[in-house]
Structures are given as C-alpha cells and as structure tokens.
C-alpha cells in the first residue's frame, strides 16, 4: 500500500513538474497567469477595503457621492487648476537647485500629489470609477471561487460515485445530470436566483448548483477508465474500501481535470454574474461590474464613455486571461490532447 502510494505520488509530481515546465515555456500563458494574479491582488485589496470600512462603520470611498465631481474625465495627472490646500508648489521645482532639499518621503508625497484623484474618472454621482472597478473585481472573484466551491465538490463526488459503483448508482446520477443539463442554463440560473431572492446568495446558488454537470460527466468517464487499471485492482486486492480507492488513489490521478475545469468555468461564472447584476437580480447595493455596466449604459449615450470602457476592459482582460490560461493548462496537463493538437 505504501509503495503504491509512493509510486502514484512520484508519478503525480513529475506530471505537475512537467506541466509547469510546459506552462513556463508558453509566454502567453505566463502573461495570463500574471494578469490573473494582478486581478487577484486587486480583489484582495478590495476585500480589505471593504472590511476596513465595514468595521469602521463609515461609507467606503467607492460609495461616497460627491456631486461636485460628477462626470470627471479620466486623467493621469491632476487638473492644473485644481486647488489643493496642502500643496507646496516649491517642492515641485526643487530639482532645479532649490537649497532646501526635501526628504525622500516629501518628494514622494509631492510626486503622488500631482497624480489625479480619479485616474479613471468619476460616474454620475461623482464616485471614483477605479475604486468601483476594484470592488467589482472583488465581487467577481468571490463569485468565481464560491460557485466553484459549490459546483466542483458536487461534480467530483457524484462523478466518482457514478463511475466507480456503476449499476443503479450510475443510472441515478446519469439521470440526475441529464435532467439538469436539459434545463436551459441561463434561465435555470435566473430561476434559482429568483426563488432564493435577489442578492449574492442567489448568484452563488444559481451558478453553483447548475454548473457541476460537465465536470460530473468528465469525472465519471475518467473514473470508469481508471477503475480497470492495475493499480486500482491492486488496491482492491489489498482490501481497501471503495471511498479510499476513489478519493485517495483514483482522484489524484485525474486531478488535472478539476484544475482545467476550474480555470475554464471561472470566466463563465464571472460573465454570468455580470449578466445577473446587470438585470438587477444579482448583487444589491455594492459596486459590481454588472451594476456598473447597467449604470454606465445610459450615460454612454450622453458621451460619458469612460466608465463603460474601463469596466468592459476590466472584464475583457480577466476573462481573456482565464480563457488563455485554461487552454494552456489543458494542453500542459492532458497529454492526450497535447499529442492531437498540432
């Protein structure tokens, strides 16, 4: 038993190392990987900001309306005539040879002070588009991760059971997923969200409870294939229980499917959340990308292009990065696909 474990482990390591090497060589995939990390950092920062102001019990800056600053155009540098009481203009010219050389911190502060408050502009209530976009990333990652935490365990568990036990169990699970898959996807999600009630919980449950089907089908097929492999037969001959064989022996060998599925369903979940929030059955009262789009949509016709553009760009890059990385992962982790793709 120990030996079989050790063997499967060492084989697994080499597969992962091999896949990692493949990924490293793929420049597009690495760029996507870094973009995703950047978004993740944004989402974590957004989460921190959210909780900070939640504990402080004050209105977070991304919700503060400021009617003097509505519809500010995006600009990297502060407007030259914008008054700033704390600004000491002499600091800006010190490199011309001012005798009183300021410290590094002061220089940095003055440098930052030139930068605009709202690099991506403001919306109709004077709220900062950049901060709201960051909060949108937070919601998007929450949705992607939580729905995965719902859908992937269901898919893996049912798929393993169906594939391993076969017979009546298999019939039941196949019936279950063919039923789920025959219900039109988006409508099913919306209907669940409607029944659960507007809000993030509806989004999580709607997406999570409907998107396990594909993974379940894949897992079932793979487990069925692995069930007849010698290592599983050996484990069975050693008297191991079915659940131990399924989850300790077979699952590590087909784990790459879960990773590929995760990276490919993530962008789909994000897009669905955008739809739902846009239609008003998603996030309530917090800035999500869908809500920003639905706000910006009408302003677009008045020539306020920036909110719309930056939000759609934010969505585009994260979805693109996930799609590219997912494809690269599939090529790297699934050797059969690697040989057939040329």
């Amino acid at each position, binding site marked *: 038993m120990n030996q079989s474990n050790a063997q499967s482990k060492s084989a697994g390591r080499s597969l992962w190392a091999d896949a990692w090497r493949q990924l490293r060589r793929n420049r597009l995939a690495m760029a996507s990987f870094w973009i995703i990390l950047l978004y993740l950092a944004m989402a974590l920062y957004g989460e921190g900001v959210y909780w900070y102001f939640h504990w402080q019990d004050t209105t977070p800056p991304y919700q503060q309306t400021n009617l003097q600053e509505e519809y500010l155009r995006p600009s990297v540098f502060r407007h030259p005539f914008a008054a700033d009481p704390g600004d000491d203009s002499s600091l800006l010219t010190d490199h011309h040879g001012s005798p009183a050389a300021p410290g590094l911190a002061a220089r940095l502060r003055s440098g930052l002070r030139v930068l605009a408050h709202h690099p991506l502009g403001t919306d109709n209530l004077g709220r900062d588009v950049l901060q709201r976009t960051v909060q949108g990333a937070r919601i998007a990652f929450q949705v992607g991760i939580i729905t995965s935490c719902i859908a992937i365990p269901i898919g893996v568990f049912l798929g393993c059971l169906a594939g391993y036990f076969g017979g009546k169990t298999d019939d039941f699970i196949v019936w279950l997923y063919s039923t789920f898959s025959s219900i039109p996807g988006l*409508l099913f999600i919306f209907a669940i969200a409607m029944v659960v009630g507007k809000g993030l919980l509806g989004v999580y449950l709607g997406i999570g409870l409907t998107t396990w089907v594909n993974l379940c089908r894949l897992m079932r097929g793979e487990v069925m294939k692995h069930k007849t492999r010698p290592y599983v037969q050996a484990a069975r001959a050693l008297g191991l229980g079915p659940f131990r064989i399924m989850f300790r022996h077979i699952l590590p060998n087909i784990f790459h499917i879960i990773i590929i599925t995760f990276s490919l369903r993530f962008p789909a979940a994000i897009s669905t959340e955008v739809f739902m929030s846009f239609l008003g059955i998603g996030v309530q009262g917090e800035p999500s990308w869908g809500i920003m789009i639905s706000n910006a949509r009408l302003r677009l016709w008045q020539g306020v292009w920036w909110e719309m553009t930056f939000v759609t760009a934010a969505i585009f890059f994260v979805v693109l990065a996930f799609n590219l990385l997912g494809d690269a992962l599939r090529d790297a982790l699934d050797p059969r696909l690697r040989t057939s793709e040329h």
Partner: protein
Amino acid sequence: MYRYIIRRILQMIPTVFGVIVITFILFNIVGGSPATMTLGKNISPKALEEFDEQRGFNKPLLLGRWSATRAYQDTVFARNAGPWREIEGVVYVAGQRPEPGHIVMAPGKDYAVPLAFKLKKQTTYQWILKYRLISGTAVFRIIADDQPRGATGARPALPAAAEPEPQATVLPTNSAWQTIRIPFTVGSDPAVVKPTVSAAGGALEISALRLRRQNAHWFDSQFVFYLRQIARGDFGKSHYTNQRVAQMLKDGIMPSLALTVPIFLVELVVALSIALLCAFWRNSWLDRGIVVIAVALMSVNYLVWIIFGQYLLGYRWGFFPLWGFEAWSYLLLPVLIGVVSGLGATVRFYRTVMLDEMYRDYVRTALAKGVSRPGLLFRHVLKNAMIPILTNVVIAIPFLYAGSLLLEGFFGIPGLGNMGINALNYSDIDVVRAIVLIGSVLYVAANLMTDLCYALVDPRVRLE
C-alpha cells in the same frame, strides 16, 4: 430499428419527469407561495388566498388530507396575541420556559374568533386548539346562536351546565395543556359561520389555535395539480399581464424565432467557412491569427457587444434602426450582434472538430493516393466532420425558441426572451416555469432526434 426508437423514447420519460420534479422542487417547495412577493404586503388575505387557489398553492405539497388556510393564520402566541390583539377582554401572557406564550380569556364573555374572510361553502374544516381550563366551563361554538344580543354583543354568562348546542363543543376542564380537534362542515351559507369561544366560571387559556381545511382527497396536492396542468397544456395565468401563459408563449415565439433563426444560420455558415479556412491553411499565420481572434472575441462580454453595437452602429453612425419590431430592417442589427458575439466560440469548436478529422489515417491515405487538398477537405473531411457538427447543430435548436434573453430586451423585440426577463423581474412564476419547462422538453426531444439520426446513419448504434 423500431425497437431502438421505442427504447429511446422510453428513456426520455425519466428525464422529462426529472425536469418536472426539479421545476416543482424549485418553484413550489423552495420558492413557496409567491403570493406576498408578487402582490405586495398590504393585500387582504382573501386576495392572497384567491391567488393561491388559482395556482394550487393552498394545497399540501405531495400528499395530505388537511391544508392551512389564510382565513385564520396559525397562531402559537410566541411573541404576541396575533389577531387576538384587538379582541376586548383577551390578555396576552408571554411564554416563560415551561409555560408557552398564551392568551387568557376572562370568564363571562363571548369571544369571536377573528377570521380574515368567510370560509368556503360545502367544505369541511377543523380547528386544532391547545388550551388549559383550570376551572369552570368553556364552549367552542362554530355557529353563533341566534339569540338577540345586547348592544355590546355580550351575552349573559352561560350557566355552568349549558347543554351543548349543535356544532358547539364543550371543552373539558383540564389543568394541563391539552389539544382538542373540532371538525365542522360549512353548509350552503358561509355567512352564518362565526366561531366563538366563551368561558364561564374560570379563565380559558389558549396557547395555540390552528384552522385546517379538508381537501377533496389524499392526492389533492400541489404536485398533482401541477401534473394535471401540464397534461392539459395549461401553464397558468401570468399575474402581471393577466394573460394565459400559453397565449403569451404563442404570441412570443414568432418574434423570437425571427431573431434567433437568422443568427443561428448565419453564424453556422460563417463559422464553418472560417473553420474550413483554418483547416486548409492549418498552422499558418492565418490559422493562428484566427485562433487568437476567436479567443479574444469569446472573452468580450455579451452585454458589451450589445451596448457598444447599439450605441455605435445604431445611434452614433445610424446604420440601422435602433429599437422596435416593425420591419425586417429592425432585425439586422440584433442579428449582426448576435452573430458576432457567438462567433468566437463557434469557430473554435468547428476548427477543433475539423482538425481532429485532419489527423485521421484515412486523410493520410487519401493524401498519399494523390487526392487534391480542396477535394480532400470538402469531399472527405467535411463529410466525416458532419457528425459532431450535426450534433452541435441539433442540440442548439431547442435554445432558439427562447430567443435571446438580452438582445430582445435591448432592441424591443416582443419575444419570449424579453418576456422571460420581465417575468423574472416581476417574479412571475408561472411564466418563468413555463419557459423553463418547455425549453427542457424541447432539449430532450432534440437529443432524441440526434440519437435517431445517428442510428439511421450508423447501424452499430442500434445494437448497443
């Protein structure tokens, strides 16, 4: 072959049943009665009850003889006296650990049970009463007696040994809490039913009171109601537009098809042509460029296509009419947007299918025998690739009926997608349920069609 067809149709039944069960679980069990959600909070219980009656929500879920009625909402006096608040002489006592919360009725008075509306004719009901009567007597009357009343409505206290009138139940004295069931039948005139409680000699304490209505039979449940509705092809009535859902579906399907069928066909032709180009010049810069563009197109959100497309092409540059459903030209822009938004994924799929075929042995053989490349592509590869392509096409057909959820709303096309979104916004359960159900059944049917086509083409399938 016939045996195969019959077997396949029989296999379809559990799936359709599954869909029915899932929609039932979703809308009836999880969702519960949408009456308060759709009608609002300040609606009389009678209107709510009628809403439920029409949709079968006042029945037990699966099986049962008795069901609750809104004429008298269950009261357990956990926090307050509930509907008894307004009745003079009733004192509320909050619960303290062993003692449940209850109301105390002082002796020597009649207390009319506060019913929200008249009960139904010719129906059997029962009261379930949990009470304590330490001393004295108490009577629960279903029909208030005809004796003339005083100005205040109070009658002199009953003598201790009042003989029970018809439909009156004497509550036995008991110092512990006990439950009693009082069944009664409403005659042809529901107006005379005025349940009253009266106590004499000692205070009556009530800790729970429930009213149950008897159903016609054990299977008179929501599920059976739903099944019968489906069997009749009746999908209920939209509470928002007040139209029959079947009629709404009939009205909405043509605009939806007018939008989705062109999208589907154009996209199919364009995507197949591009995929063939990719297969023909595989691994060239053209192929790689197309793949990158396809992934990029895929990553643009659907909303973005619609919003920017409508803004730029319709509003800014004025190439197309903006909004409405008056002439065929109104469909051009939505169709264009629909095609472009779906193109990325479709091209990628067909390209993979084509390339899978390109590396088969028979292709190599054909090449070795000197078949020209275009000939190979069109006569051999395309023909063999048709099986996965056809599967994809047939499976996509049922989704055409629902139209495009978002496109229709943006462009003012009165189709099923638009209807569905409105129904979601107004929590119009009957409409959403009908669209989900029909979509699923069509999908199952399309699956059956593909399998039958396979069986026609490939004899091996039949033997499986």
